[in-house]
């Protein structure tokens, strides 16, 4: 379980986001200036750049506000709050692999594979023999549900073609 950032980490993160927003606003504004205005169709007031330009200015201002506000506060001392990054990164990697493979291999096979990999990483397979069997049984039900039941429902009840 990851928790939200706090203290010094949040301070640094806010500074970084503030700068990113300033850059994003500036980049959007410059890109907007390069868009055609279609003034020859009667008026410049319908130019496609007006809305992104407007948003870019506001994003720039909000980023500047965030940065200024964070700089005004003293940086909190570093705290030793260790974040549980490993499971998040593992999960992210698994999901990314699954999503990239969608459309390239059979969907039901893919999602069953995802469940097995997920179980291997996240379910603790230690403990009494009876408990392991129980867990394996539960995982088998999960695989049955996601790899057979849900796709079948989508395909035959909602008439949707699987990727």
């Amino acid at each position: 379980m990851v928790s939200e950032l706090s203290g010094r980490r949040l301070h640094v993160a806010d500074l970084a986001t503030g700068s990113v927003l300033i850059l994003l606003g500036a980049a959007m504004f410059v890109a907007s200036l390069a868009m055609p205005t279609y003034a020859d169709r009667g008026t410049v007031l319908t130019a496609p750049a007006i809305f992104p330009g407007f948003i870019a200015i506001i994003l720039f201002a909000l980023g500047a506000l965030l940065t200024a506000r964070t700089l005004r506060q003293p940086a909190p001392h570093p705290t030793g709050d260790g974040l549980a990054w490993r499971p998040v990164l593992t999960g992210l990697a698994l999901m990314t692999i699954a999503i990239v493979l969608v459309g390239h291999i059979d969907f039901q096979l893919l999602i069953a594979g995802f469940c097995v990999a997920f179980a291997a990483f996240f379910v603790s397979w230690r403990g009494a023999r009876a408990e392991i069997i129980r867990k394996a049984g539960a995982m088998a039900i999960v695989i049955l549900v996601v790899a057979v039941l849900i796709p079948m429902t989508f395909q035959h009840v909602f008439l949707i073609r699987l990727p």
Partner: protein
Amino acid sequence: MIDAFLDLASATTLFNVLWATLAGIVIGALPGLTATMGLALMTSLTYAMAGQQAILVLICLYIGSIYGGSRSAILLNIPGTPANAATALDGHPMAQAGMGHRALGLATVASLTGGLIGGVALALIAPLLAELALGFGSTEYFLLGIVGIVVAGRMTAADDPLKGWIAGFLGLAIATVGQETMHAYPRFSYGNLDLTAGIALIPAMVGAFGISELLMSLGSGKARMVDAPMQATPLLSNFRDMIRRKVTVIRSSFIGIAIGVIPGVGEDVAAWISYGAARRASKTPDEFTKGSDDGLIAAETANSAALPSAIIPALTLAVPGSAPAAVLLAAMFIHNVRPGPMIMIENPDFVAAVCWMVIFGTIVMAVMGLALSRPLLLVLKVPREFLTPVIFCLCLLGPYALTQRIFDIYVVLAFGLLGLAMRLMRYPMAPLILGIILGGMVDQNLRRMLQLIDRDPTQVFTRPIALVLVAVCLAAIFAGVRRRPRNVQVKRQQARNQ
């Protein structure tokens, strides 16, 4: 009205109401499957039915799915449809505190009340309301969009509204990607066809809420969704709790009806505006987003009241009040009903029948919802390690089902990552989604407004609705600025003490 009732009351009707409402609840509760998609699909499946029964099925499905979305919002913190994003704010904390049964029950009675009040409004003042909605011009639409973002940003991040507004305007920025409709110019697309089509709302929502929620919860091992012991809450106490908050119920119903009737603005915006108003009026605004009764009731009453109200312009102007109502309108044409300004003269029975359909659907929705509460709560008892693959699978299939595009699945992942980063840095997710919803509306109406002002500058001061909206917007911004520094100070202090 009574003739219409007698005409409609039959065993076939009862059967259709039952299954359609149930199907709606299921579709709404599944993340990514929305009311719009359910209706579009069901329209294909009801060609062969008699006209009135087909419309009945669709209306019940619509009601069921907007309500069903509150189930996953409360239990999983993943709003089933965009209309339930505000419901998750208070509903999920309640469930986490072991009061899941109470949250489900309260949301149900709130939806029931909102739906019935909306249904009555549809019966009594449909044509009048539709005429008033004509007063909404480009200027008002633009301002309504900005008010929506400012209010949602302020309400979801009360101790730090700056982050709420950043999320909201980031949502608007994301909505600029793709082809704009005035000149068909592809903005920020770089020749890529998928980007030219823009970032679709549903995959973005499922990613930002669903995938990021899954990622945040990983590594919690055997932990269940809710560790606190769960309390059962009797139905009567739900009604008592709601009656105690009757002011919120009435206010939210009126807001729901008012927003719903505006063409093109639906249940999602209604829930937000109502949530913001409830918080502003509340004596205990600090309880909001932590499990407030008022917050939950405000969101669910307003989205349910907006639903019948969104059908009003579809019936009397042939212009839908929301995206699902657009599908409903198409279905009416297919079944030889001709909505439009003439319907009250040519076919008043049909309008009465629609009111009864809304009322039937709403009642059946509440009965079924209450019966399903206990089985649904079992979801909270499943260990996360088993629940995650199931939800992941639904998060992939749901958005794909809507348009059957692989690109949308990549959008789900990208927004899962963005959502994770934003959650870690304490940004609210809901204004981001509202920004994507409102982007197109704000964009077009801003440019049309400029064109109209250019043509007639005096109209800036002659539009009362517009002036009210400007006032609301300024109030939401400056009330925030005054309060912020103190709150931030306190928070920093706490952070240092930890």
